[in-house]
């Protein structure tokens, strides 16, 4: 008994230390980045003195601010749209058997297995053909042509966001007892009512997860976006990449820190919302009996 206990303790320690090492590795670079975003030195690894200059310079940086606003604009539209599409798609896919299900699955797998660079390149090729054709058909000249820009980025983002979010929503749908929906229909709810009153509340963590996934994919995407940008539609990752490639600019450390902080805030908020939701479901002792 004691040997079993020590053995378990030992294995917990081993697991724990390996986990600690893995987490440490995961965080060290980011942590260092955060620290150095407050360093006044322009170059190198030497700590000079604490400064907020790099953060202060961000609002005055027009290029950067535009990139941030582009990224937010795209993510804030792409996220809800793709979450709705993904939820619909998940319901449509998990709702039952249908002809061509296998091939549909294959098509839906494409965005997940296709290397980003190939997606980007193929979108560039296809969209430029399509735009040319569209401008011909609509008789649009140089001045008012439809061209690459935020709409094309948005389309591309919605496509891959939807594909990934669908994965998560589908997983939560699969874990759902199909009898729940049937019970609702049986009790007199229409399909629409059933969706809003039963299915959506039940798969809410999945939908929320899908939305979070879409949001971060959108904010984060570099490779695909790079190929479908147009004038004035540079997003934050592309701007960061361009700056990484040119001169030293410690303000990138600051921007990166801000992105990191924002991710944490969004994530914690989401978790908090979920925890709040489940706390609400616990009965309070003094709550009166319904209708009593």
């Amino acid at each position: 008994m004691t040997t079993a206990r020590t053995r378990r303790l030992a294995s917990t320690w081993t697991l724990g230390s390996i986990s600690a090492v893995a987490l440490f590795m995961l965080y060290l670079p980011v942590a260092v980045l955060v620290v150095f975003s407050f360093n006044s030195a322009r170059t190198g690894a030497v700590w000079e003195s604490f400064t907020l200059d790099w953060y202060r310079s961000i609002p005055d940086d027009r290029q950067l601010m535009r990139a941030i606003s582009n990224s937010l604009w795209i993510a804030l539209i792409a996220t809800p749209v793709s979450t709705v599409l993904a939820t619909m798609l998940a319901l449509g896919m998990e709702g039952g058997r249908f002809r061509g299900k296998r091939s549909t699955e294959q098509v839906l797998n494409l965005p997940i297995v296709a290397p980003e660079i190939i997606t980007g390149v193929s979108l560039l090729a296809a969209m430029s053909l399509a735009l040319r054709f569209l401008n011909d058909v609509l008789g649009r000249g140089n001045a008012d042509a439809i061209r690459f820009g935020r709409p094309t980025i948005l389309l591309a983002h919605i496509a891959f966001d939807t594909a990934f979010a669908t994965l998560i929503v589908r997983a939560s749908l699969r874990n759902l007892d199909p009898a729940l929906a049937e019970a609702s229909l049986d009790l007199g709810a229409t399909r629409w009512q059933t969706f809003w009153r039963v299915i959506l509340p039940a798969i809410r963590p999945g939908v929320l997860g899908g939305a979070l996934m879409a949001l971060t994919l959108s904010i984060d995407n570099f490779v695909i976006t790079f190929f479908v940008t147009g004038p004035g539609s540079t997003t934050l990752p592309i701007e960061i990449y361009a700056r990484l490639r040119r001169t030293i600019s410690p303000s990138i450390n600051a921007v990166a820190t801000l992105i990191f902080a924002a991710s944490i805030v969004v994530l914690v908020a989401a978790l908090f919302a979920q925890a709040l939701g489940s706390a609400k479901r616990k009965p309070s002792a003094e709550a009166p009996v319904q209708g009593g």
Partner: protein
Amino acid sequence: MQGLVELRNVTKRFGSHVVVDAMDLRIEGGEFLSLLGPSGCGKSTTLRMIAGLEQPSEGRLSLDGADITDLPPHKRAVNTVFQSYALFPHLSVSDNIAYALRLRRAGRTEIAAQVRDALEMVRMGDHADYFPRQISGGQQQRVALARAIVARPRVLLLDEPLSALDLKLRQAMRLELKRIHRQLGITFVFVTHDQGEALTMSDRVAVMHEGRVLQLDRPEELYERPASRFVASFIGDANLLNAVVARAEGDCVTVKVGNGELPAKCKLSATTGTAITLSVRPQRVKLLQSSGGAATGAAAGPTGVVVEMTFLGDATSAVVRLDGSDQQVTAVRLNVEGVSAFGDLRIGDSVQLACEPTAVHVLVR
């Protein structure tokens, strides 16, 4: 006169697999009808077709004379208690029950009153604000029941609602269901694979097998007069023995089993020499301590050897292998004050079988 629910020539196929086969079924208003059969016999599918959760491939369904075949589930005055209970996890007990009423936009006070009544009926009045995952399986089952009856459906469908409960609870719930059925006076259609449940609760039982109703009758009739070998084997325990008609005298026959004969009462006009199947309930098999094959009475019962004795608590069962045959017969006798009613019968003893003519039921093979 019309049944409340009628199924006419209803067939359900999944792909090429026929689950329900040209079924005709008539459910009377106010009755407690059980669909009984082994898993995969189509009983649940039948229930789901009545609920509208499954559409028949062929045939029509009607409720109260109106055709409901193409009516979606939410437009049918039929509610279901699901096997998994299917309580909405995000709603409290009272909100679960109020669900159907809210959909009908009933008034607040009315909903509150009806929910309270329903909770009282299932004796869950003090659990209104709990959530499904906070209450036990038995309690969930009651809530599911309350939810299904609160809107007073014409028909209540119960899909093996007791199968997830333990034995004690199951037996208690049988009585509860029976009581609620009496109180409400609505039609219950109850699906189960447990013949005990079906027999104890139902007004009528439909025994199903491979998508067909083999026999639809009152429990006593089913038990005493099974129409087929399958029904006999499925309802209660029965010894099914191959036999041949030895003599026929009016509505009485004597059949030859193993190395002996047994009297039987039957309405069949069986002629001498017909191969038949006998059904004898274990409780009605008598074992006589045979002393060297000395027989009494006109028909000397078959002899055999006891091969197994099992203590069952309130009773003891003995399995006898018939001499000159590989057939086995089980006999059950109640114990008296913990003492085996078989006396000092031991494994290996030779015995002779005897039965009352009314205990032996003849099935045509």
